[in-house]
């Protein structure tokens, strides 16, 4: 814990709505406690803006503990800021130095249209889940939870992939705005478990088809997604999905 405070200059993307063209706006912010989170620094900035008669900066956030995936912000070109395995809400100001200039942009991508300032519409991710990111089991039809043993390794790998918070940082970080890491995390999570393996071919075909329909880019294996992922989802999942997609394409009727 420290009592240090710093002064920063922020260059923030402002855009009134989806249809208008945006621009950068510069705001100096003074006396930022280094114990603040990046979002609390935005709260403070907005307080000053409102007091000065301006319109505050719209930004998404909710749980502020790194699990809901609502917060976004591309900070100096890095989705969720400079640290690995960290969501913007968990980024603290002690990470920055006095006098820094920070450029803040939304999670840009064609499939994530900007709604206002730093808020984007990420419902394309939901539509990909709706296309196949589930196990087709109706309520009430389940057998006993222990009826089907799952090797611990599979279960752990599934959990690694299931840790995805659906924030879209992978898409923002990717020069191609590809959603492969997101989709592959779901394909892996469910495909690795015996419960989800039943429909894994159908799942991967449908989810990839929807992904293409949403106009996400394709993967060129740069690894930007993995580096930006706040939950350390691995590119291994993408390879797994590629294999699965290939074999599903071969065997589908």
């Amino acid at each position: 814990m420290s009592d240090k405070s710093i002064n920063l200059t922020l260059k923030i993307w402002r855009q009134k709505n989806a249809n208008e063209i945006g621009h950068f706006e510069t705001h100096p912010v003074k006396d930022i406690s280094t114990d603040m989170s990046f979002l609390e620094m935005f709260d403070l900035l907005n307080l000053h803006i409102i007091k000065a008669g301006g319109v505050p900066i719209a930004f998404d956030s909710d749980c502020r503990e790194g699990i809901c995936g609502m917060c976004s912000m591309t900070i100096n070109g890095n989705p969720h800021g400079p640290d690995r395995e960290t969501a913007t809400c968990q980024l603290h100001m002690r990470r920055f130095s006095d006098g820094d200039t920070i450029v803040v942009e939304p999670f840009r991508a064609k499939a994530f249209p900007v709604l206002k300032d730093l808020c984007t519409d990420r419902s394309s991710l939901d539509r990909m889940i709706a296309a196949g990111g589930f196990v087709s089991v109706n309520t009430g039809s389940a057998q006993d939870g222990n009826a089907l043993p799952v090797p611990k390794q599979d279960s752990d790998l599934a959990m690694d992939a299931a840790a995805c918070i659906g924030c879209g940082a992978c898409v923002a970080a990717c020069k191609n705005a590809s959603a492969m890491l997101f989709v592959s995390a779901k394909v892996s999570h469910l495909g690795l478990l015996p419960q989800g393996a039943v429909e894994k071919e159908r799942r991967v075909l449908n989810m990839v088809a929807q992904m293409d329909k949403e106009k996400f880019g394709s993967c060129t294996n740069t690894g930007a997604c993995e580096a930006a992922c706040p939950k350390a989802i691995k590119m291994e999942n993408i390879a797994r999905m590629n294999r699965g997609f290939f074999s599903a394409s071969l065997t589908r009727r």
Partner: protein
Amino acid sequence: MLKLDSKIPGGPLEQKWETHKFQMKLVNPANKRKYSVIVVGTGLAGASASASLAELGYEVKTFTIHDSPRRAHSIAAQGGINAAKNYTNDGDSVYRLFYDTIKGGDFRAREANVYRLAEVSNSIIDQCVAQGVPFARDYGGLLDNRSFGGSQVSRTFYARGQTGQQLLIGAYQAMMRQVGLGTIKLFNRREMLDLVTVDGAARGIITRNLVTGAIESHVADAVILATGGYGNVFFLSTNAKACNGTAVWKAYKKGAGFGNPCFTQIHPTCIPVSGHYQSKLTLMSESLRNDGRVWVPKKVGETRPPAEIPEEDRDYYLERVYPSFGNLAPRDVSSRQAKFACDAGRGVGQSKMAVYLDFKDAIKRLGKAKIEERYGNLFQMYEKITDENPYEVPMRIFPAVHYTMGGLWVDYNLMSTVPGLHVLGEANFSDHGANRLGASALMQGLADGYFVIPYTIGDYLVGNKLPKIDASHEAFRAAEAEAKARTQKLLSIKGSQTVDEMHMKLGKLMWDHVGMSRNEAGLKKALIEIPKLRDQFWQDIRIPGEGMELNQELEKAGRVADFLELGELMAHDALHRTESCGGHFREESQTEDNEAKRDDENFAYAGVWEYKGQGKAPELNKEQLVFERIHLATRSYK
């Protein structure tokens, strides 16, 4: 006077739900699609209900305030979910889970509901496993369990420190499957602004499209609120920023009774407050208390760093006061003891408003690797926030508002006093009485959504002939006009204070007077101060921007305006309940060793408040709690 018919079925406790399921009317499969249901909220309760109802064939419209239904705050639950599977062979049973929950709730919950909850708990685990929830497993491939506060058996299923996330994703995926199939119509970034009743029955809602600002009407045959708790009335809580009480509050004003509003849970293990602009508190899973030992220095005004304080100068107060439960004492008890220690000047850290949670012994016993495996992500989170390494320095923790046991009153069918308005999950008052046990919130949310509402809503729908209406009905027109007028009014004030500033003021009032311990003078003060603050709000609030656009200040303002009314009701309830029970601690009612003193003779009831109109005092109704099975006893964890 509200008509509080709890509709508890007859017969022995063990057979009530079975009997009731048989007695309820069924909707013919072909007719289900003729009924439409609105579900507000997509947390565990809302998502599971939406999915289950759509699977049955109902026409479902689901609303979420977020950009995606997966963001609902159930996602943040860390520790686990209880079920009476007894996979660990340590003596668990449905009855024991039922008993622990009633006792944990300090005997202020309805027996029949809690029994049903314990009964369906096992099906929840089965359902979640089938959906692909990656619960922790051992090398044999079977499910692993851990222990949790308030219980002496290991019955908690978990998925690392992200159980809530995994359960929610399971429910969300089930729901999105139905969205894909076209049986659910999903409305995201919509906030419910009002409930619409026609001929006394809930027939729809008014929403604001948070992107365009448009005020919209949605009509259905029944409405389900699964909108979570109202802990954010305290400003600082472990709740997410968007958590609010608006939906339940609007329902209350339309005639739904509000049950036990003062029952709030203060969670013992949160990261302490560190600055004025702190926006929320972060919870550290209670599971940490499995291996961490809670202590404070014995000496008042201790200045040595923790490592230099020798064993004999440490007070492991939970182990001392509650030898049999020790660090696993229930939440309310643990929180209160932390408060006592800090009030006595033995708190630690800069603010002196914290206690230590020490893993030194556990690391010595199990090795760092084991601790890392169990709590790695929590330790990492702690370090990120505080810049201290908990493997070396004990964590500092302090209680924070976490959950609200109070909520809209519902009967055994989860229907409120407004016909057709059903309330699920944290939004209802139901199953946790005056205190919720750890790992039970997830259980209740999913029980309500997967296994209760799909049965009970059919009974309501066939049992009531509802007129065919659409959004042009005058009730909808009036409610829309009212919502628009309120938005306009908020925007037109153009005062000097921001919504957050007002909210912080309310939060401080609530924390000081309606917080962890309450007394008559404080509550009376709150009842004077809150209305004053509310007047200030309506005269001096400043909301920039316009109504017909994405306007986050406007969103927050509407919620805080409702909190300013809800907070007052909480104070009313806390004032009238002169006993101490569970999370509600009245300083006037305590034993010699500062334990809560319950008053079963006068308060063995759910206090259900009824809205009587603007500026009028709310009226108290009582649902007497009848304990057929459980003998009311003093809750002791010693």
